[in-house]
């Protein structure tokens, strides 16, 4: 009996949103004939039950404290045990720090391949078919798997999680499997991020290389401050120049955001950046270049030097109250 194994994950004791998104994706695949959905979480049985409420048919709580470090070595035996228990032939992980490492390691261990950062998944001819961006988002590739087990990581915010349904039921089991890790975690530090987390922000104000210098980010922070729940992001070019912390990078190699409003200031819209924010509901571009990619992708755009617009916009939005 084939099926889908979802590797859920938690963040600071709570189930991370990507877990629900993976379950949303898995339910779609299940409705296309991919079999039952089993979720694995390094956590408690209560969390496992929550995953069932969000779409899993069965859930496995891996309770071994060794998993807390989140290393590949510790996780692999737990995932293999869950695979065996579920009989799944599809494994879905998030494109997160955990999934980025665990997906490939699991695939090579099982002698199969992995597709990273998928944005679309479907069942065709009884097998998984994945779509993902490549060449900095300039192209899209559709891929399948040669070996039986199909491992994929899923880009954050590309699938909708399902609302919790407490009436859903399914078996909850606990496993203790964990491996001895060769990589010892000495410590973890949070990125110094002021205010709201980029991925959770309803409004994101981002700046790029076109800002010309680091101090312009102060202006963007002031603009963000005029909105409720806004965060400041940056393009890779701006982060590489050291103008803003890498933790705030939006793009292919940074964060994926899909806020209600994305204000792109002096960002040309290289595909590498678009890959991280094209899911935004409303995009506003402030750019000197009317032909910039970002302008084309926007709902509203102002063609002007940002230095003349942003201070005025801050005042105008303050006036609106």
């Amino acid at each position, binding site marked *: 009996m084939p099926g889908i194994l979802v590797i859920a994950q938690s963040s600071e004791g709570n189930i991370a949103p990507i877990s629900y998104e993976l379950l949303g994706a898995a339910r779609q695949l299940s409705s296309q004939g991919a079999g039952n959905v089993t979720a694995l979480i390094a956590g408690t049985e209560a969390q496992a039950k929550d995953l069932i409420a969000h779409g899993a048919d069965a859930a496995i709580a891996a309770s071994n404290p060794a998993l807390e470090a989140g290393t590949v070595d510790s996780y692999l035996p737990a995932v293999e045990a869950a695979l065996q228990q579920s009989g799944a032939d599809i494994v879905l992980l998030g494109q997160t720090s955990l999934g980025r490492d665990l997906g490939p390691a699991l695939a090579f261990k099982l002698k199969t391949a992995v597709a990273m950062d998928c944005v679309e998944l479907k069942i065709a001819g009884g097998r998984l078919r994945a779509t993902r961006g490549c060449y900095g988002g300039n192209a899209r590739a559709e891929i*399948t798997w040669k070996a039986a087990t199909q491992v994929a990581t899923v880009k954050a915010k590309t699938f909708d999680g399902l609302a919790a349904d407490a009436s859903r039921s399914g078996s909850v089991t606990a496993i203790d499997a964990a491996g001895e890790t060769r990589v010892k975690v000495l410590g*973890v530090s949070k*990125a110094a991020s002021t205010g709201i987390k980029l991925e959770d922000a309803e409004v994101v104000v981002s700046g790029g290389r076109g800002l010309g210098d680091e101090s312009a980010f102060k202006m963007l922070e002031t603009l963000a401050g005029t909105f409720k729940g806004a965060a400041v992001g940056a393009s890779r070019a701006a982060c*590489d120049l050291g103008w803003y912390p890498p933790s705030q990078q939006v793009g292919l190699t940074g964060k994926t955001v899909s806020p209600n409003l994305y204000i792109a200031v002096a960002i040309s819209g290289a595909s590498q950046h678009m890959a991280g924010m094209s899911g935004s509901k409303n995009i506003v571009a402030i750019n000197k270049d009317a032909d910039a990619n970002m302008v084309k992708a926007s709902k509203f755009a102002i063609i002007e030097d940002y230095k003349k617009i942003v201070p005025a916009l801050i005042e105008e939005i303050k006036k609106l109250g």
Partner: protein
Amino acid sequence: MLTSAGFSPPDPLIRNRSAPRPACRRPSNRVNIIVCVKQIPDPETPSASFKVDEAAKKVIPAQGIAPVVNPFDPQATEAALRLNEADGGGKVTVISLGPDSARDAIKHALAMGADEGVLLNDPNFEGIDNFQTAVALSRAIQKLGGADLILMGRSAADWDMGVVPAGVGQILGMPVVTVAKAIEKNGNSLKVERVLDDGFQSVEVPLPAIVSVSNEFGEPRYPQLRQIMLAAKKTVQVWSAADAGIGADEVGANNRWLPLEALYVPKVVSNVEIIEGETPDEKAHNLAQKLRAAKLV
């Protein structure tokens, strides 16, 4: 085919710091680092110049835009050189799998200061996937006698999967640490500072190990003319698949583990409304009004 049989990790060649130092450093005591680099189409290629041959499922090289070294790879080379400088010498071998032109990616690393290079070059490498690449690189690394440390960029900016370090790690039985921003060697282990989604993680890993390096590592050195001249004299071996012990059935686009079903450029439809105004202030005013009307503020 993925067994590590026949591959025994080399004895740690790193000198134990507590042991008495030999009067004269012999080559066999040196830290042996392998850096894997890749040549890719320039990721700064303007979208308008980016074309795909959908039937062949291949990118059409943009006219007049030369391929470049994958942007994360010079950082891997930089990491190797800094480790050896801190350690008082060692050997850095650069491997690249690619067409003839990939020799330039190797030359760049040699000009930065790496010692020698190996180009894995075979018509059968055309169109292979990351699984096959990991197999091929692992074979080449085995043929070189293994390494104390294998460094790679965090991912290649063309396919952007970041899978090869994990693959080589599984095949060769070495621990893997990804997305490094700082690496420090203490005796027979490394302390690595990693970049996570929402912060940083510090880990310790015993050698031999594989580490993938991220852009946060810092600027790689820029080769000077003298070094470029010197690099021209350094050895670059060219190995075919057979030379490296890679079976014909293990490579080749027809033997992909991830068959490529389609490759295309997604279509973009623009519905932008350009906000007009006599002055910048008026434009800003009009935008604020539009945002209010759309309930975005």
